[in-house]
């Protein structure tokens, strides 16, 4: 088909400034982990604020001020034929509908079903122009059953995926687990995802301020907290979700990086759950922030490098079957020539 309506690549003009974007919190968690209890806490504690809450099963929600939207989770494949390139079609529709209402919501909270893979929700924020201009993904909050997590990790991929995607993890029902069990569960969680903030709770009793308005999908914050033990090569798992981080000292050549990361995501995107990077480009005073969910990637300049601090570029991968030497060599080869 020859029809190219227009040669220009210009997209929709930004009708909403960044500050006008409504924060979206995604609440995930395996069946029985205590997700609905936590959601109820959030809604009853937020007096005077107005949320739109997207749910699948209409439970007993304490909603005076809030709008509840009942939605069937509809995961749509994009028509590139790739199984990991999926979006939540229902969210695209719902966000479009919510934007027609007057008066702003203070936020949108999306509760996913227990078995949901969080990737389609996150990818929706990369793909749809209305969703990405009008809202921003504030944080993915995952509720974990402290007692039963080891069993869940053993019998499902989804439990690990939900932890891998989390910015905030609520380790719930801690009263039912021993101190040793708790320590082991935290260790397992950290192994999958070293970046998330962990809060211990018994009945979802986490302050709402620790869950909403986190700006956690914000790369700067995440990478500022990158723990150093990530560079430890001691643990190598294959089918398990793991994370790896690499740092280089010379500036990154944008063309080389784009070529490398493009080829890597195309080849390994199904195994790469999340990729985040802060890059130093030659002669550029601002940091370039890169992020991807599976194959869907996005990048933009964020604030300037700190005065006097070393301009080291850093990239983090969370995924399955990660090949450490190959990833390290690849990232190193993106540096400008000495």
């Amino acid at each position: 088909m020859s029809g190219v309506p227009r040669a220009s690549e210009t997209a929709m003009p930004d009708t909403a400034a960044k500050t006008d974007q409504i924060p979206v919190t995604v609440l995930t968690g395996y069946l029985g982990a205590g997700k609905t209890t936590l959601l109820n806490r959030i809604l009853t504690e937020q007096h005077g604020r107005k949320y739109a809450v997207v749910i699948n099963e209409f439970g007993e929600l304490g909603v005076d001020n809030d709008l509840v939207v009942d939605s069937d989770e509809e995961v749509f494949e994009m028509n590139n034929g790739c199984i990991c390139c999926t979006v939540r079609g229902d969210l695209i529709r719902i966000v479009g509908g919510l934007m027609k209402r007057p008066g702003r919501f203070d936020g949108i909270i999306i509760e996913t079903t227990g078995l949901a893979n969080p990737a389609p929700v996150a990818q929706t924020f990369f793909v749809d122009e209305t969703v990405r201009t009008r809202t921003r993904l504030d944080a993915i909050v995952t509720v974990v059953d402290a007692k039963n997590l080891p069993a869940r990790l053993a019998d499902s991929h989804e439990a690990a995926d939900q932890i891998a995607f989390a910015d905030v993890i609520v380790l719930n029902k801690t009263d039912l687990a021993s101190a040793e069990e708790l320590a082991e569960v935290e260790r397992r969680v950290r192994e999958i995802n070293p970046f998330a903030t962990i809060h211990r709770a018994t009945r979802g009793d986490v302050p709402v301020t620790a869950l909403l308005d986190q700006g956690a999908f914000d790369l700067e914050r995440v990478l500022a907290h990158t723990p150093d033990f990530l560079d430890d090569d001691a643990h190598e798992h294959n089918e398990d979700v793991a994370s790896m981080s690499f740092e280089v000292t010379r500036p990154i050549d944008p063309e080389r990086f784009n070529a490398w990361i493009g080829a890597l995501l195309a080849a390994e995107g199904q195994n790469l759950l999340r990729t985040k990077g802060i890059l130093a480009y030659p002669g550029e005073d601002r940091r370039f922030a890169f992020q991807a969910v599976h194959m869907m990637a996005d990048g933009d300049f964020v604030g300037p490098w700190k005065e006097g601090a070393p301009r080291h570029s850093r990239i983090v991968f969370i995924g399955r079957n990660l090949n450490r030497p190959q990833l390290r060599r690849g990232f190193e080869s993106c540096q400008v020539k000495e």
Partner: protein
Amino acid sequence: MSQAASADHLLETRGVQRTLGAFVVAAAFDRTGTAAFALGDGSLQLLHGSEWRSVAAHDGAVLALTADPAGPGFVSGGDDGRLMRTARDGTVAEIARFGMKWVEHVAGFADGKSAVLACAVGKQVHLFDGAGVALKTLAHPSTVSGLAFDARGKRIAASHYNGASLWFVASKSDNPRLLEWKGSHTAIAISPDGDSVVTAMQENALHGWRLSDGQHMRMSGYPGKTRSLSFTRSGKWLATSGAESIVLWPFTGGGPMGKAPTELAGAAEVICTAVACHPQMEAVAAGFADGVVLVADIASGRLLPVAGPGRGPVSALGWSADGARLAFGTETGFAAVVDFSRT
């Protein structure tokens, strides 16, 4: 005369305008020529002559609007899960309620003898007769994203994930003709001859099916999503939004395959957000993200400016049945009706 003044000339000399303060979701005329604007605050704003009337039709946002196929007035769907009928005098009556699910699309068809009304609620399309009596429910594999009757009211098409379903309205056996194409389809139109069904897709493209021979049609290259698509009265052109011009695909001589579209009213970096073909002539009204509204004559390419920029992205357009008047509205709540008839 300055540029800006001339762009607003028709609006100022032949228009009735108002700032309504809420997102204008849709605009339509009923059979008597009353205009209605459906708003994000749940109201319908009726305009009869130069007299406005505000009607509280929904508790929430209005999501869809059509002229009442059964008589004067309008039918609307909202995120309150209700399908409502609003008379010209502002009387509101509930046709149906569907609980938590949004009523996202409505469509009506009327000829001299009968009227049919359809609404989409989640995965289902509900059909009603003119009196509002439920006729039947059509089930789809995923949420319905668009609805269109054919020109004779015999069939209704619904777009959804992985294609569209085409149903005979009067059929006793409820099996649709499935038009399949992988991906998320988000809006739908049927050509006046009933032979082409075209959908808009999530991936900034259109997909079409020619029913007589099963030919697929793929129209791509849009910088944005097509939200609005409309066939001209003759069916020779399909006008679409989603690019920095009005994109018109030729549907004559074998269809759009292998042909370049005609582009009118190109404006660098300003996306066309709404189109509505004239009910009588080969002309199309278009609205843009900067608020510009114009009417384009397709054969000559001549443009008639209706409103200049600055009143918000155009979100609604509708012609009166005789084509003498155009209603338009914007995301920021501006609404107007412009009268083109000779005085």
